[in-house]
């Protein structure tokens, strides 16, 4: 990749990143930057590499070529760099991945107390504030299995916010929710966006992208096909692949 990188304050940077699963080329020379305080949404058909891309940011998947940086720290697989990167990123998963053996409150405080060395009382106070912010302060003593999917995902968002990350990574956060639960999660995410949080979101929620995203990235077969502001991407897609994808999604 040539020196196409513009100057500026980028929280997440990809420079010519490649990844293979065996012989399958899962990410093809991906280059992108997420500017501080902006929201970038990634969409594309299944198998397009969008989940792989976001999981490379905090090293859940290892890329093989190119450079990924978070707050300027390279994600290179060494323990120290990885720990620093994970402290600066919060991640929300499609299947929530709350810890079922811990109460809601303990789910939030586990990381800061045991990994960050924060006193338990201080962590609990912050956790209560965050739970209040996502609208489930009254459920803090319950176990995840006792909550609805939407509530669980809101807890997961609060848990990811506990380390006060530089960027929030969302990997299809509403894809396994019942339709009537989607809005409550999107509302929390939009509130976060209004608060100026830097976000990288893999999603199919077109309305959410229109309202919140500064940039929509369309991926297919491991490469970035198009990147444009939502109003442009949805109304004037430039490639046939994007048009075909939008045609299918809009019919939903």
């Amino acid at each position: 990749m040539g020196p196409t990188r513009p100057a500026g304050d980028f929280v997440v940077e990809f420079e010519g990143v490649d990844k293979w699963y065996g012989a399958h080329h899962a990410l093809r020379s991906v280059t992108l930057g997420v500017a501080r305080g902006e929201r970038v949404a990634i969409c594309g058909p299944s198998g397009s590499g969008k989940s792989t891309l976001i999981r490379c940011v905090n090293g859940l998947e290892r890329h093989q070529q190119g450079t990924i940086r978070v707050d300027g720290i390279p994600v290179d697989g060494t323990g120290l760099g990885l720990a620093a990167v994970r402290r600066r990123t919060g991640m929300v998963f499609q299947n929530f991945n709350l810890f079922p053996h811990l109460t809601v409150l303990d789910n939030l405080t586990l990381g800061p107390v045991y990994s960050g060395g924060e006193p338990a009382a201080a962590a609990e106070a912050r956790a209560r504030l965050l739970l209040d912010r996502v609208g489930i302060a009254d459920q803090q003593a319950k176990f995840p299995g006792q909550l609805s999917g939407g509530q669980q995902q809101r807890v997961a968002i609060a848990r990811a916010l506990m380390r006060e990350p530089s960027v929030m990574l969302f990997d299809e956060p509403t894809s396994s929710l019942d339709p009537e639960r989607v809005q409550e999660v999107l509302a929390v995410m939009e509130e976060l966006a209004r608060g100026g949080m830097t976000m990288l979101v893999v999603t199919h929620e077109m309305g959410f992208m229109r309202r919140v995203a500064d940039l929509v990235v369309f991926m297919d077969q491991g490469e970035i096909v198009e990147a444009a502001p939502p109003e442009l991407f949805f109304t004037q897609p430039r490639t046939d692949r994007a048009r075909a994808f939008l045609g299918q999604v809009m019919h939903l």
Partner: protein
Amino acid sequence: MADARSFAVAGGGPPQPPPPVARGAVGWARRHLFASPFDALVTLALGLLIAWLVPRAFAWAVVDAVWYAPDGQACRAATGACWAVVAEKHRLILFGTYPYDQQWRGAAVIAIFVALIGLSSIGRIPVRLRLAAWGAGASAGLVLLLGGVFGLSPVGTHLWGGLPLTIVIFVGTVAGGMPLAVLLALGRQSEMPAIRAVSVGIVEVVRGLPLLAVLFVVSLVFPLFVPPELSIDKLVRAILGMIVFFGAYAAEIVRGGLQAIPAGQHEAAKALGLGYRLRMRRVVLPQALALVVPALLNDIIRAFKNTTFVAILGLFDVLGATKVALEDPAWVRHAPEIYVFIFLLYLLFCLAFSRRGMAIERRLAARKR
């Protein structure tokens, strides 16, 4: 037929209580004892068997039984059980060859053990506190049995016997075997080939050996290669053998639990910045161990009963001491009574363990509701 139209009727009315089921003894019997002709047949057959067996057992064990016979004379004429033999031999059975006038120390160890099992069945005590209580109880028990301090006369482990010895071996086996099982299970999943090979090797080799062989190796073969001044106590060697045996079996159970934890749990813990040890200790192991409580309990109960194997090393656990007690010609024909007593003793402890396990399962299930 061709002009049939699919249809549905809207409106089901207000909610109503379910239709009544037959209550009382008759209703219960109809549902559980005579639900079908086959059920009725089984009920009748088992009923006849019970009607035949229970009166005979009751006559033997209670009506015709002899409870008091200081010299065994009264027992010889009796047609029922001779429980006097238990009264006569209970000190030997319960405490083996431990010095007679010091046997209160063994009794105290039994009391501590029973109290700790009781404590464990009280619901909301944090795990940390439970473990501390067990640690304190185990230390106190060892000091009591060994003596040599606080004015207690020293008693060598070769004199230990009976139920306190059984308890020492059992607690030692589980306390040493559980951590070993977790380490072996984690080792088997390690990304480092050497650690994985060692873990797999230990598990496969030990599982391929009978417990008796393991005990023979640690007690008879092992000393051949170790100079006498380095030799360790026979009881310690026996417990080490039991630990390795228990650990190898339990490791496979723990591994099953580890494999049942979804990848998402590992990923979420990584994303939160938890390193390997914290991830295992706080996220993966608590869930994995909770999943395998019933299977682990099975192994723990077996470990309690496996303590009887140490008799072949010349250690007199409850069963070994019982055999010694039966060598007395005055009482030798009353082996059935003694073994019924031993049977009840083991049953009592094993029931206590499984009740404890059920309590754990209930508490875990409550989190899912």
